[in-house]
């Protein structure tokens, strides 16, 4: 009994695994990938940082697409982004990627499953801290993102509004979390585009930029 008391006290005092690192991995990749892609037979995980793929210059390009600066504390160049290439046999059938996003009351973990062209197949919150978390998690809200691509978001300039994507804020008093969600999903798609899809959106960005200027 004494041994138990000593051990449990120490374990309770040593909850050093209560929080994850700053990257956004899937909490259970085997389960999550299979749920998102039931036909999949496996996946490959790749960790990429902005630092190793282009450094400050790439960060500038990402910020230009995002329409605002990356957070100087939690979106630094050395953040490791985990990309899951979903396999069916030897063939890649899609991608899963998550990002951390600052919300109004805490960190969000936004996970996207996309096809090979970056079109969203499913979006969900792996984590969200909000009094209205239930409304944000609701399938009626998250399924609005299905079918969207980065091109749909490039006309959207956070935090000015939600023009470009026709998605309604599901909350009553958490508009900041809604805007944070849009920003996070857009950032997720931009990083996927840069790191995995070979930067397909550059021309669209140019067009989008011109359109914005016209407006």
């Amino acid at each position, binding site marked *: 009994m004494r041994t*138990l008391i*000593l*051990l449990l006290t120490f374990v309770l005092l040593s909850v050093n695994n209560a929080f994850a690192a700053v990257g956004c991995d899937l909490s259970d990749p085997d389960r999550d990938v299979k749920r998102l892609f039931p036909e999949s037979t496996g996946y490959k995980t790749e960790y990429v940082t902005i630092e190793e793929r282009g450094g400050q210059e790439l960060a500038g390009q990402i910020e230009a697409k995002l329409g605002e600066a990356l957070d100087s504390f939690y979106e630094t160049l050395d953040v490791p982004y985990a990309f899951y290439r979903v396999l069916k046999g030897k063939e890649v059938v899609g991608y899963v990627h998550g990002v951390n996003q600052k919300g109004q009351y805490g960190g969000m973990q936004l996970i996207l499953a996309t096809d090979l062209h970056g079109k969203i197949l499913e979006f969900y919150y792996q984590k969200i801290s909000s009094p209205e*978390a239930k409304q944000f998690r609701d399938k009626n809200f998250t399924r609005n993102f299905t079918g969207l691509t980065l091109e749909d978001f490039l006309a959207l300039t956070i935090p000015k509004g939600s023009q470009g994507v026709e998605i309604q804020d599901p909350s009553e008093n958490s508009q900041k979390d809604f805007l944070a969600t849009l920003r996070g999903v857009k950032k997720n798609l931009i990083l996927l585009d840069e790191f995995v899809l070979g930067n397909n959106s550059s021309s669209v960005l140019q067009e989008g930029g011109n359109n914005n200027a016209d407006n």
Partner: protein
Amino acid sequence: MNLVSLSYKNLIRKKIRTGLTVGGVAIAVSVLVSLMGFDKGYQRGLKSDIDKMGYQLLVTAKGCPYEAATLMLQGGGGLRYMEQEVYSKIIQDSRIDKVTPQLVHTVADPDKNDGQGGMMLFMGIHPSLLELKPWMEYKMGGWFSSETALEVIMGYEAAELEQRVVGDQIYVPGIDQVLTVVGIFKRTGTQDDGIIFVPIQTARDLFKLDNKLTGIGIKLKQIDDLVDFQEDLYNEPGIQVISMAQVQGTIYNLISSARVMTNSIALIAVVIAVIGVINTILMSVFERTKEIGVMRALGASRLDIFKIIWFETVMICFIGGIFGNILAFLGGHLVEQLVRGVIPYVPSGQLIYITAPLVFSSFLGAVAMGLMAGIYPAIWASSLRPVEAVRGSE
């Protein structure tokens, strides 16, 4: 041609066989070095973790540890609680150098882990905590504005996970409360990095735990007083006293059984490697019976033959020792990741701690292994009679 170079040439005549034998020795040495490095690193990390708790004694309420752990894991009330009076009484003791009260509370957050739920760990603290843990410095911000402020100071990793900076808000599920971040601690490499700190009175108000405490951390002026002080507190009703030295000893004892098993594995690896070396050298000697007979007939002494065979064995173990240490260095990180994924509690810091003396002793051990393994084949070879050796191999 001297005997060492002759031995070397004998070895490279059968490159694959020699390579495999060296590989076996290298793996055995690598396992041995990694396990000994793990043992050293674990003890070092555990000691560091316990030292960084900042106190020598922890006073908690008496209670069933299973129940306490279950409650903590489910969220809500944690350990059984002590009354504030216990703290008020303890601080009267003149043997105490520093003392700090704590109120730990976990909150179940249903929106973590993809809606499966997780925990948020809150700790109500008093300014005296920073006297016991002077290494806890602010990355940004500072202490609470008042004893009852609806404010938090976040551990480094907690802030990182919640993406908070000073001035941000944080939502506490369950009690539907929003708190303001006023400070973030620098990384300490301890459990404190994952905790959200609130003023102790705020914790009592928020979690409806009026006048309650879950722990009192104590540091004495004289470490020699520890046993007497502990004995005195044992007589107090309703509380139990846990010495951090005891915690350390208990964990050492618990892992010692695992250590016996891992050391046995290392020993088995070494024995297999030794048998492999003996087998290789014996095969080599059998194949060269005629050659050895000719050498003896041409004037080589028994000692010369003994030395040639012995040098071969030592060379295999010498090279195996070098590669084994390299392998342990390169594979240490991988083993560390594996261990961290498997063992429930792993201390912070470097887990596989490979020191120069460890490398040196393992290297000497490998050479000694070669010296021992070579005796029988060398004696066997040197005892061959020239005529019989030449005739026997025909």
